[in-house]
């Protein structure tokens, strides 16, 4: 099995550190979400892994070897960096044929990935006639061409229509299910939450978190209970008696922080408060992410000690 190993990777552009002593491993069989604001160093890290940029110090390897040392690398690693990079005057199919030829990938794979990405009908049109979403699909087709064990996609849902976004979600899940190593960068939290098992979070070039997604959220966002009732006063006093704070929201529902539905439901029932709605609110990735970036300095110190 092939993983991506990044070891105290540092890249400086002049005096600016784009990537700062980054160490993490992307493991096979999982979709790893690569998060961070624009300019956090996600794309730079991917370029360093692919040997396109030279690190100032540290190393990045795929399956234990530096990318440039791989024989026929497209058969090991498939990457989408920039969907605009394909030459506009070439047809989509020719673009893939050029890539296939360089790594002795059979022609039939070109037609397979074109069908898989839904581009078969436009394969013989020039890339400059493609929409942003079609270019994105072509970039993904190129990444899948060599049936690689490692797939690395930079913002793959850019420009995709809703149908395309659902498609890419399923594709990423399938690739991980097949045991491949999948690293997907994004700055869209809800999108990432829909496909990622594991998270690597960067902020200003440094590693902020490297944890399973569920743990990441649970550690940062307290669960709370959402209630609607016809008798707000009774609800408030019943909960206050048991030490729960109730917060009223604009559209008429109430929330109780640090609480579980099992407890609140019993309390309300015992107090005879009529309930219209009772639900557990799970923390979202977005909340957890904002919590993390809010306490960024503190958290960074902790991970470096670990």
């Amino acid at each position, binding site marked *: 099995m092939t993983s991506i190993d990044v070891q105290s990777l540092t890249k400086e552009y002049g005096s600016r550190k784009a990537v700062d002593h980054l160490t993490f491993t992307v493991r096979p069989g999982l979709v790893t979400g690569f998060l961070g604001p624009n300019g956090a160093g996600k794309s730079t890290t991917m370029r360093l892994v*692919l040997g396109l940029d030279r690190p100032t110090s540290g190393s990045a390897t795929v399956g234990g070897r530096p990318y*440039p040392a791989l*024989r*026929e690398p*497209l058969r090991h690693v498939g990457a989408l960096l920039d969907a605009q*990079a394909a030459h506009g005057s*070439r*047809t989509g199919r*020719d673009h893939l044929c*050029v890539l296939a030829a360089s790594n002795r990938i059979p022609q039939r794979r070109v037609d397979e990935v074109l069908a898989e990405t839904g581009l078969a009908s436009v394969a013989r049109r020039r890339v400059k006639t493609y929409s942003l979403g079609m270019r994105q699909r072509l970039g993904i087709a190129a990444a899948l061409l060599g049936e690689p064990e490692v797939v690395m996609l930079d913002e793959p849902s850019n420009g995709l229509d809703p149908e395309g976004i659902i498609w890419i979600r399923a594709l990423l899940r399938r690739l991980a299910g097949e045991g491949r190593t999948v690293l997907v960068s994004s700055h869209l939290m809800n999108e990432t939450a829909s496909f990622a098992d594991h998270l690597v979070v960067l902020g200003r070039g440094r590693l902020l978190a490297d944890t399973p997604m569920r743990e990441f959220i649970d550690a940062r966002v307290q669960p709370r209970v959402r209630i609607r009732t016809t008798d707000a006063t009774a609800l408030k006093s019943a909960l206050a008696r048991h030490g729960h704070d109730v917060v009223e929201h604009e559209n008429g529902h109430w929330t109780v922080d640090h609480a579980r539905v099992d407890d609140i439901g019993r309390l309300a029932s015992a107090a005879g408060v009529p309930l219209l709605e009772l639900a557990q609110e799970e923390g979202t990735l977005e909340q957890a992410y904002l919590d993390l970036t809010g306490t960024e300095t503190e958290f960074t110190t902790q991970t470096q000690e670990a």
Partner: protein
Amino acid sequence: MEFTPALHSEWLKIRTLRSLVGGLAAVLLATAMFSALAGADSEGADFDPLFSVFFGVSFGQIAAIAFGTTAMSSEFRGGALRIALTAVPRRGRWFAAKAVAIAVPVLVVGLVTGGVSLAVGEAVLGAKADGLTWGEELRAVVGCGVYLTLMALLAAGLTAVLRSGVATLSMVIPFLLIVSFVIGDMSGSVADVLPDRAGQVVFHETWDGVLGPWSGLAVTGLWAGAALLLGAWRVRRRDA
């Protein structure tokens, strides 16, 4: 990674761009057309029938240079170089494949151009071309192929150094059109070792400089080689 798949891929890149295939056709057309036109004006004391027949090379070379430039510069637009180097991460090998993929088609087209130019030029000149020997004709035809190839490689190398086709063309074309023409008459000076002047000795029946037909092409080859080495060095060193 081996060289052959990289070369195959680079050749496909050229074949699948219409502008590049068109550029190769332009080499043949421009050369033959201007060689025919030159034959119409065959007076004067320093008339050289061989140079008249191959006069069009001065124009055809612009198409060859444009071809070499465009073939290389398409890799420096957007993230194209990243895609290329992700497929072939050994940069030296990639650059060599690119250079060969540019050189071979220009050489083939250049040799055909030489042959066509000879036929057209001699037909226009008629009896005035009778003095040309078989050896001179063969030399010029082969020279035509080699010269155009070297000029295309020079342009490709410069493009990799400058990372821009526009910069290369705006440097090389004025150079060919102005510098060479202006200081071109000063024989025996630095002008003789300029890439175009040196290489074009091969199209003359007689020459009076230090450089002969083959040593002249060798000088052009040195220019092209230097440009390619610089280009390769820059591709290897720089972040893609």
